[in-house]
């Protein structure tokens, strides 16, 4: 019998999701060609250090490569750096590249990520507002940080606050401006956000909340952020971390539905059964939260979805059901969240030696957990809460509030661990 040779799997985007997908395809014994297309010149690297150790390391760091150096070659994954896709031709199953060539695919994964939202203010571009997404962005920021530098951070989200903490460590004079009434938005419960804000203030960072911005203006020595109440915040450098926009242009041009991200089903398949999407670029229904459509910008989600997409690319039918999990390091403390706290309509607080650990319940069912403190007091229980959320548990609130009741006792039957 004659068979047509498999043209292979093409992955657009070599961030966490795309690279994990490629490596997982090999773990799953896929033997056909895999092509991983990266927009940047580096080998695929981990992004979490960009706002942290890349800023604070004594010596200029190199990117932390995903899977370590040599992995892609060892796995026979063809990596093309700096050669972005320009167009998808679904009829001929081809991806067209910037250099004019085209790649045929049997299956295609879009792991195109997201780009920083730019600051929509007069003067922002002229005054060189900085953003953080890539290793190059991170090094540009690193090279600006110096003792005494007046740094204005626009946006009190994860990236802004992590950059603020790192810049403070480098000796900068840091002010964070958040337009919303409080930092960290609705993904983080107000009680936890208040603790984070207090820690930043105690460390010496100024946080201004609940005030709009009108412009960035040039000044004789630096620039000024003009606040809506007329105040001026003088700065030598400005970084904006005000959210990210999913990279959906290729999908849209190919006629695939986009709904705050490339729309996929539970398997992470788009409307085209040969094309899948994973990571920051996709919006997917979450079965643990009644099918609520989510788009997550998080390292762990990118990794989990990349791995899941690899299975789907090979014909597996399972739905992606991993409970969301976020973490952020600031001033030596860690913020961890599992599930979706904003799904809850009841909050139960467990006092762990003075640190509040919050459980978020919806009609008695555990849907989220959140805490901010030393990693040794936060991480295990957040992980156990994640397992409880995944299992649909409805633990007794009184027991949840009691720090002497171990969370492991709620896991019945015990989760199987490979």
């Amino acid at each position, binding site marked *: 019998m004659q068979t047509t040779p498999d043209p292979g799997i093409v992955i657009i985007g070599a961030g966490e999701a795309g690279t994990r997908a490629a490596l997982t395809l090999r773990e799953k014994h896929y033997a056909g060609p895999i092509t991983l297309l990266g927009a940047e010149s580096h080998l695929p690297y981990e992004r979490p250090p960009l706002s942290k150790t890349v800023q604070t390391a004594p010596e200029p760091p190199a990117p932390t490569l995903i899977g*370590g150096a040599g992995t892609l070659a060892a796995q026979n994954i063809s990596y093309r750096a700096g050669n972005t896709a320009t167009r998808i031709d679904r009829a001929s199953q081809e991806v067209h590249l910037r250099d004019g060539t085209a790649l045929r695919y049997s299956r295609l994964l879009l792991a195109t990520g997201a780009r920083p939202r730019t600051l929509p203010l007069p003067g922002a571009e002229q005054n060189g507002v900085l953003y953080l997404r890539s290793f190059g962005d991170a090094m540009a920021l690193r090279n600006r940080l110096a003792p005494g530098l007046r740094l204005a951070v626009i946006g009190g989200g994860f990236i802004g606050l992590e950059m603020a903490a790192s810049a403070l460590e480098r000796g900068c004079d840091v002010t964070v401006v958040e337009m919303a009434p409080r930092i960290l938005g609705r993904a983080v419960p107000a009680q936890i956000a208040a603790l984070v804000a207090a820690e930043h203030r105690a460390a010496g960072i100024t946080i201004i909340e609940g005030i709009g911005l009108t412009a960035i203006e040039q000044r004789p020595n630096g620039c000024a952020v003009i606040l809506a109440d007329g105040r001026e915040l003088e700065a030598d450098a400005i970084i904006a971390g005000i959210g990210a926009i999913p990279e959906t242009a290729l999908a849209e041009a190919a006629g695939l539905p986009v709904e705050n991200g490339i729309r996929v089903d539970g398997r992470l398949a788009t409307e085209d059964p040969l094309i899948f999407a994973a990571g920051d670029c996709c919006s997917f229904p979450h079965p643990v939260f009644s099918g609520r459509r989510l788009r997550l910008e998080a390292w762990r989600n990118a990794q989990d979805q990349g791995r899941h997409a690899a299975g789907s690319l090979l014909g597996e039918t399972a739905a992606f059901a991993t409970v969301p999990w976020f973490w952020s390091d600031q001033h030596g403390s860690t913020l961890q969240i599992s599930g979706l706290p904003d799904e809850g309509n009841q909050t139960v607080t467990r006092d762990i030696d003075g640190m509040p650990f919050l459980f978020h319940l919806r009609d008695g069912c555990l849907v989220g957990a959140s805490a901010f403190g030393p990693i040794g007091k936060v991480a295990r229980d957040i992980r156990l809460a994640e397992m409880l959320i995944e299992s649909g548990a409805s633990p007794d609130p009184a027991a949840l509030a009691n720090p002497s009741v171990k969370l492991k006792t709620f896991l019945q039957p015990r989760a199987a661990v490979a």
Partner: protein
Amino acid sequence: MEHWVDACAVNDIEEEDTIRFDHAGQSFAIYRLEDDRYFATGGFCTHENVHLADGLVMGRIIECPKHNGRFDIPTGQAKGAPACINLRTFGVKVEEGRVFINLG
């Protein structure tokens, strides 16, 4: 060569849990499994500089508290991304209610 160091009392570690032990500039994680077997590995995750004693023990697996890298406790074998380098393991013996690890 054997060089046994007294790390802790057997009851310093709860069942299915781990504690940190530092000795002579090195850091270790000492584990007690559900069946009361004790093990010891290098203290830090091989993926990033995070102490495993802050992680979660499930069965015979230790999970890194930050990135969920997983290791098999008895063998130190890396079991899941992002961890891909095995942990170093150390011999353990229990005598008269104390846990000793072999740094020889």
